[in-house]
């Protein structure tokens, strides 16, 4: 049953890739159908799970023994508990919707079949990731989604920028993966196993140092996958991929895998406060980082990407808080999955209508042309900025509250940071809103010179947007009702209650306040007066933010360029030194023999001389013999 969950999309991928051009016409439908199949499976499993009560809801399925070498026993086994269930539902539902959406979006792409194959591959990998019963299998899914994201980011391979972005994403992720790999090894050497149960159970009788080490390694992995500082640089470029990809992988599901990993390994982090602190710091920094970047970008997708980073920063921070935060991290993750996917799909439909123009300064006043997009986008917008009683409102406020409840100065600090983040969120989202849908139209003919005439997207694209809009409106409320979600997850993640200096109400009030502040700020800058179609140079902070706060320049200066010099130097050395020694020896022997050859000059008299010399020496020797 659980195996099928993964198997269906995997089958789809295989069939589509192998099937070749016979499937060109029906390929996308096959893929969507298979995604839907796994969605249905997930739903049935879900209700079946609801049928059982809290503690024994977890399901296990042991397929086969994968790598058995002595004590090293890696199995292909699945574990479906509430946590994974949540993810499965999110992945399959959003995934299916986006398959549907892509049918319209990729309609004119000649390689659509392959695109859907990759999408299916991604679904399979992601489901494997969340369903795995041990860290090694999780690692497989982990790299699998990396591969899928590589393929999808670089889907338009003829664009060098896309190819580069894909490579960058994979490599940066690889760095994170090393973290995960080392973590798994540490687990093996520490616990003699890396299945969830033994590890998490054994966590509390292991030394804190080991746990910290494992925790940090896991965090490294999470940073890579979830685009957290310092491994965040790939996410912006990943927007080179088709928009549905950005929505599915780089907003809703894959980038949240880091949060899943840390939540899953809660037991380890609980035992390692230092690691938790690092997690919090990373989350907080990323939160602001993403927000700042989001404020400056004019490319709508990159702005949203910044927003994604920032939101995931929230979740990270929450997971760093320990049991207090896990639940809400996941909750925010789910709601974020809805509204951010909605936002991206909206952006996609906007681009669809505008000849793939991404510069928001070339939009303006689109609400008249694409009403559905406007409405759905708007709802998602309200959700993300935490408009009261929309989903963002609940999840984010809970996290902020949890941050305060850390207590003491750090509590205040965290709360403050997160409120600032909230304000920024409101600011950049409003900015996007205003630039895109309000004001007067600012678009010009593109390079080929045809005037874009914005139009609403086909139904296959709008329907998913609507569904997601509903989700982003309702999810939070539904979750918060009687703390459904909390009780749902509690058996897996546990639940802690910090004592917060401030009450829920005050937090909600403050959040709403700063939100309004942000909106006002954005309106003050972009709403009152017309926006110029070309970005003003702006202050240094803006310029820096436009360049993703110089992260790439930093990487380039610190890693890439020295790396290039190193490789070039080594190539030279290998040729000159390592190889040179050998060739040198050979050459010297050759020269020596060449010299010796001269002695044989063929003149009989020369040989005679040597003969007589020899004779003389012999005589001398005999004489000496007799002398002594």
């Amino acid at each position, binding site marked *: 049953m659980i195996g099928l969950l993964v198997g269906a999309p995997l089958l789809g991928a295989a069939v589509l890739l192998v099937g070749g051009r016979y499937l060109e016409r029906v390929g996308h439908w096959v893929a969507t159908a298979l995604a839907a199949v796994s969605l249905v499976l997930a739903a049935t499993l879900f209700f079946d799970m609801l049928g059982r009560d809290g503690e024994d809801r977890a399901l296990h399925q042991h397929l086969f023994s994968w790598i058995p070498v002595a004590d090293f026993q890696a199995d292909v086994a699945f574990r479906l508990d509430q946590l994974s269930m949540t993810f499965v539902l999110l992945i399959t539902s959003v995934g299916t919707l986006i398959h549907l959406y892509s049918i319209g979006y990729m309609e004119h792409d000649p390689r659509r079949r392959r695109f859907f194959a990759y999408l299916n591959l991604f679904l399979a990998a992601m489901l494997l990731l969340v369903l795995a019963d041990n860290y090694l299998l999780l690692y497989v899914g982990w790299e699998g989604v990396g591969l899928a994201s590589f393929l999808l980011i670089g889907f338009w391979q003829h664009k060098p920028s896309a190819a580069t972005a894909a490579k960058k994403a994979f490599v940066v992720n690889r760095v994170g993966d090393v973290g995960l790999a080392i973590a798994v090894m540490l687990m093996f050497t520490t616990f003699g196993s890396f299945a969830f149960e033994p590890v998490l159970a054994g966590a509390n009788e292991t030394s804190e140092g080991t746990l910290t080490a494992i925790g940090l390694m896991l965090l490294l992995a999470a940073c890579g996958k979830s685009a957290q500082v310092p491994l965040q640089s790939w996410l912006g470029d990943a927007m080179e991929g088709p928009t549905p990809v950005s929505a599915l992988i780089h907003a809703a599901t894959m980038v949240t895998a880091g949060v899943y990993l840390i939540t899953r390994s809660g037991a380890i982090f609980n035992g390692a406060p230092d690691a938790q602190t690092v997690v919090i710091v990373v989350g907080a920094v990323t939160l602001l980082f993403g927000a700042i970047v989001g404020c400056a970008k004019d490319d709508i997708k990159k702005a949203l990407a910044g927003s994604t980073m920032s939101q995931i920063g929230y979740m990270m921070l929450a997971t760093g808080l320990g049991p207090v935060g896990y639940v809400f991290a996941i909750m925010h993750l789910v709601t974020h999955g809805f509204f951010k996917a909605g936002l991206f799909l909206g952006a996609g439909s906007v681009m669809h209508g505008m000849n793939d123009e991404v510069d928001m300064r070339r939009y303006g006043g689109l609400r008249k042309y694409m009403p559905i997009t406007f409405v759905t986008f708007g709802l998602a917008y309200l959700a993300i900025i935490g408009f009261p009683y929309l989903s963002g409102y609940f999840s984010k406020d809970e996290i902020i509250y949890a941050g305060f409840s850390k207590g003491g100065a750090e509590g205040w600090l965290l709360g403050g940071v997160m409120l600032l983040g909230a304000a920024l969120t409101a600011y950049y989202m409003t900015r996007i809103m205003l630039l895109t849908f309000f004001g007067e139209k600012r678009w010009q003919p593109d390079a080929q010179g045809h005037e874009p005439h914005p139009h609403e997207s086909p139904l296959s694209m709008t329907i998913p947007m609507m569904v997601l809009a509903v989700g982003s409106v309702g999810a939070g409320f539904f979750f918060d009702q009687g703390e459904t979600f909390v009780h749902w997850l509690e058996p897996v993640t546990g639940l802690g209650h910090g004592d917060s200096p401030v009450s829920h109400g005050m937090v909600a009030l403050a959040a709403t306040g700063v939100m309004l502040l942000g909106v006002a700020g954005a309106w003050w800058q972009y709403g009152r007066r017309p926006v110029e179609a070309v970005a003003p140079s702006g202050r240094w902070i803006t310029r820096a933010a436009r360049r993703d706060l110089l992260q790439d320049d930093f990487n380039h200066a610190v890693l890439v360029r020295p790396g290039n010099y190193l490789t070039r130097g080594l190539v030279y050395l290998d040729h000159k030194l390592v190889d040179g020694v050998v060739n040198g020896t050979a050459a010297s022997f050759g020269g020596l023999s060449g010299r010796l*050859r001269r002695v*044989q000059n*063929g*003149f*009989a*008299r020369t040989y*005679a*001389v040597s003969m*007589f010399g020899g004779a003389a020496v012999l005589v001398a020797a005999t004489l000496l013999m007799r002398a002594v």
Partner: protein
Amino acid sequence: MSPENYLYLSALLFTLGAAGVLLRRNAIVVFMCVELMLNAANLALVTFSRMHGNLDGQILAFFVMVVAAAEVVVGLAIIVTVYRSRHSASVDDASLMKL
């Protein structure tokens, strides 16, 4: 005077012959120098036989002569053949024995 002087003489002649072999290029002359060396050796042998008072030295010298004769015959034949083919009797011209 003691017969050793003969030995000294033979040594000197031998040396002369050796020098000739090494210095001269004309094959025939080289050959003569070899003969000179052989004769020097013979002188020494004869002197020895006298000093030791038995004839073995002379016998040996006798054999040396025979062999020398044979050698001369063959050697000269060789020289003639070489001369026919190369129109030169210089030992340096026949220096094909090199790489």
